[in-house]
């Protein structure tokens, strides 16, 4: 188990390094922060001085090495716009984002999983077809379209809910519904196909042949097996808690990490963008690690294989 965990950890660190490098390369290739922040008409001396003070005049490889060294020491740099530490800027936005993504995650789980189970148990009946119709609609409509339609209906026409801002929990309702809908749709489809796969297995027939009532066959024998593939997609959703609301935050002018990212990218505020990406990568990696450990807990076949593998 220890060896299993340590290889996972090493792989997780490599993933984070890769993301950081990727962000570094793409951002340096895509425009000069000096020109964007100071404007192209600024005097050449000012631009030169800006580059020098942020180390942008040095060779790219040297910037990269310095950047990595700083991260290793826990220094994520400062925002080029207002000079504040990038980490502070990002951290103060995290609660606002979580205030949207956590309720949205709960909404996804509470609607998506039961809907998927229900659809699978009523396969090819009207209930199944309706659920799948909503599901397809739910994840094919882009979230900015859904967000705008909701604003049109509930803010503009009915005037029930605010169209943007973060003044009270009521402002969170539309963004949470927008975020939750697509996720619930994906989860419903996943859960349905996982359940259908499991319901076709011989051990389900054995459980029925034993004399168990159908609801107990479903609860005791089908659900624990269907949970195995479903956990993967839920883990992915947990992993995107920090960065999963970029579009929705922009549509509803919600001051979270996602909007900070959009602004920082537009300004080529390198340290801030890199800090956000590092955050995103870290949460995703943590979620994946958790999922891997959950697998072992849910599926005894993996557990013993691992114990055997770890000697």
């Amino acid at each position: 188990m220890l060896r299993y965990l340590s290889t996972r950890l090493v792989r997780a660190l490599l993933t984070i390094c890769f993301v950081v490098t990727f962000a570094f390369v793409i951002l340096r290739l895509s425009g000069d922060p000096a020109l964007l922040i100071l404007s192209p008409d600024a005097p050449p001396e000012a631009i030169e001085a800006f580059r020098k003070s942020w180390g942008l005049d040095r060779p790219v490889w040297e910037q990269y090495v310095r950047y990595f060294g700083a991260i290793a020491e826990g220094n994520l740099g400062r925002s080029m716009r207002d000079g504040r530490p990038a980490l502070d800027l990002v951290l103060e936005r995290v609660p606002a984002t979580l205030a949207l993504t956590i309720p949205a995650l709960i909404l996804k789980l509470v609607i998506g999983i039961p809907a998927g189970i229900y659809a699978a148990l009523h396969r090819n009946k009207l209930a199944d077809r309706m659920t799948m119709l909503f599901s397809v609609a739910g994840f094919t409509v882009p979230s900015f379209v859904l967000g705008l339609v909701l604003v049109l209906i509930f803010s503009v026409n009915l005037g029930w809910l605010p169209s943007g801002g973060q003044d009270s929990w009521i402002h969170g309702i539309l963004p949470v519904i927008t975020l939750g809908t697509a996720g619930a749709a994906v989860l419903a489809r996943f859960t349905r196909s996982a359940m259908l796969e499991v319901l076709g297995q011989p051990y389900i027939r054995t459980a029925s042949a034993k004399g168990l009532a159908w609801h107990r066959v479903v609860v005791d024998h089908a659900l624990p097996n269907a949970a195995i593939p479903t956990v993967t997609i839920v883990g992915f959703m947990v992993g995107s808690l920090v960065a999963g609301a970029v579009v929705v935050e922009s549509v509803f002018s919600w001051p979270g990490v996602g909007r900070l990212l959009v602004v920082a990218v537009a300004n080529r505020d390198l340290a801030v963008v890199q800090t956000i990406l590092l955050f995103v990568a870290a949460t995703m990696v943590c979620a994946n690690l958790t999922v891997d450990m959950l697998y072992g807990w849910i599926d005894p076949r993996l557990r013993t294989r691992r114990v055997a593998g770890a000697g």
Partner: protein
Amino acid sequence: METLVALRGLTVDFDVGHRVIRALHGVDITVGKGEAVGLVGESGSGKSVTWLAALGLLGPRARVRGSVTLAGQELLGAPARALEAVRGRRIAMIFQDPASALNPVHRIGRQIGEALGLHRGLDGGAARAEARRLLDRVGIADAARRLTDYPHQLSGGMNQRVMIAMALAGEPDMLVADEPTTALDATIQAQILDLLRELRRDGGMSMVLISHDLGVVAENSDRICVMYAGRIVEEAPTAELFAAPRHPYTSGLLAALPDLDGPRRRLVAIPGTVPEPAHLPPGCAFAPRCPVVLPVCATAVPPLESAGPGHRAACVRVRRAVAA
């Protein structure tokens, strides 16, 4: 012999969306108390479907008609509760591939304990003790430790023993064994068959042994029913069926079976394959493969008719022989 289970005119239709396919065309089988009946046929002949239909285990796409009675009680169309009280308690069933017939995420002890709780009201320590006794009974060594194992930690033969222990948990009147040894090695096959024979002898349980292998069925049945394309084509006491088969399909199966005591001879295969349920010939389903086919065979399905005491066969030649 007192009749325990009787299937009368059992038909099964599968709704496959754009059309309906008939898998079973009116099957009659009776099983007496303590009797062992073998059900033989190639894959796709409807042997398993027959008993899954009888226990209501075919799922929503199957339409089952006819009659299934257990000690006089009608099971077809019975409420779910009545069927649940029969499954496992009166009629237990074991399946072909024991590794996939056991739930991979539950321990053996729990899966047996579930049946014990359901049918005998045992739980906790009493259920554990009884589950252990059952594992002992089916010949699993170190039963106490095995109770905490998962199916993937056991071999195929052991898993089939666990399935049998689970079937015995309800102390059923009848055991339906659906190809119980097909997925196992030859030596393990023999052990499992020995175990089934021993259990039947000790408990007086009725048994239906479903197999594509006439050899497996021969040693373990009092009476054999031969199925072909969703119908019973011949039914006779085991010795009689081997000595004097009346249906050309049965003769074909026997000719394909090696003879241990007799002189060496070439084994004969039946030419062709079983017709698909959706494309049955209009007359006798076996006619296209039959070595002694007559023109009349293509026109009508021959009924199952008496060919001696306890012996019935569905072949026009039987009627001609009786008439002559």
